[in-house]
């Protein structure tokens, strides 16, 4: 007897969708819409048509699901689509400048240890992020959102942003430093 859909992994469901069934795709949308919405909220602050963009992410995922390799992680693949959609939305709005090239992907960085910030109170950090994430540069905002709110690993973030793993580490480190400075400068309190 086949397992019920809610007992299947994302990748197993994606495989069923690839075979032509539509309904199981609804299960994937339900599983990820809160996460993708939160990601959009952290990434595209003050964006009124974010609901349409989140919908577009899932529609793009459905259109391109045959390109998904079921031996890989569905979540990373979906977040990558979301990242691309969000970047396109920012480009369309033209509110924020997008760098043409980031020099931090060029050379190896010594600071790339995952969990190097464990001594910092994560709860406190998340509260700080809640208050001033939207004031940070896009380059730091996205990895911080993916790491602290989506709980993704350096490797997963590297796959979503298509940057070196060590760059994820350095952006998180610099992002935290910038955020703390901003926090003090704006005289925020926890």
């Amino acid at each position: 007897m086949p397992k019920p859909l809610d007992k299947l992994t994302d990748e197993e469901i994606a495989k069923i969708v690839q075979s032509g069934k539509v309904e199981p795709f609804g299960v994937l949308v339900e599983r990820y819409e809160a996460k993708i919405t939160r990601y959009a909220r952290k990434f595209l602050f003050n964006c009124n048509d974010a609901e349409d963009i989140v919908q577009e992410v899932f529609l793009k995922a459905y259109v391109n699901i045959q390109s998904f390799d079921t031996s890989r992680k569905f979540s990373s693949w979906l977040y990558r689509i979301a990242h691309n959609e969000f970047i396109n939305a920012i480009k369309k709005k033209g509110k924020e400048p997008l760098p043409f090239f980031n020099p931090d992907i060029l050379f190896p960085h010594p600071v790339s240890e995952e969990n190097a910030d464990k001594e910092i109170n994560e709860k406190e950090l998340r509260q700080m992020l809640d208050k001033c994430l939207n004031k940070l540069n896009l380059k730091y905002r996205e990895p911080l959102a993916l790491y602290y709110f989506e709980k993704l690993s350096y490797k997963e973030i590297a796959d979503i942003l298509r940057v070196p793993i060590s760059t994820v580490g350095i952006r998180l480190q610099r992002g935290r430093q910038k955020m703390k400075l901003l926090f003090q400068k704006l005289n925020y309190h926890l």
Partner: protein
Amino acid sequence: MNFFNKADNDSQKSLITDKVLEKIKSGRIKMRPKAHFVLKTVLAALGFILIILFVLYLISFIVFTLRMSGIWFAPGFGFYGIKIFLFSLPWLLILTAIILIIILEILVKYFSFAYRRPILYSILGIIALVFLGSFVIGQIKIHPYLFKKSQEKHLPVAGKFYRDFGAGKFRNTHRGIVSETTDNGFLIETRHNEILKIIITSETRFPFGKDIKENDSIMILGERDNCTVRAFGVRKVDDNLNNFPRKNHGQKNPKK
């Protein structure tokens, strides 16, 4: 209440799911077939392989033309040689090779093994691969063969390319075979079937020895004045690239 404030709310969740499923079921949104992605991957792989092969060909060709003209050996004559080397490089071909290497780097960045590491590593990897491959192509002597065919007019497409770049003439660099030794130098016959009179002075440099005799393949650095070259430097070159039919073999006096 804006969208974000109610995003975690269950009714909102089902609303997005319903909207997505409704659009799919209505037929407005269609899944792309697997063949589309397979074709895309095959074309990308094919493009990648073709670009790699072309870059390998191009770089090995650049090295071949430099060796043929003798410019390859110019840096061995010190600062003056390096200056001539830099001024004589086929910059158009080099620029094309650089652009193709950049395209390769962009293509390779689609793969996780490349983008998970700093760009420097993938660039160095591509450059190492390209130079190693070019060296291998250089070893199989494809260019001397094609060059020979182009001179015999048996190479329809690339013939002009080989004749233009492969047999280029330079004012300061000359290659040829010693046809006769004279009191103050020697005569050489070039690939263009010219006889050049080489004048050796006390200032002429011989970085690899003075043991030069008739039928030696040599390279001379020095400014040409009509058919006379006052040699700044001379060196013997043993690379078998200078084997050409010598029409003027035995001719003693070059044109003045």
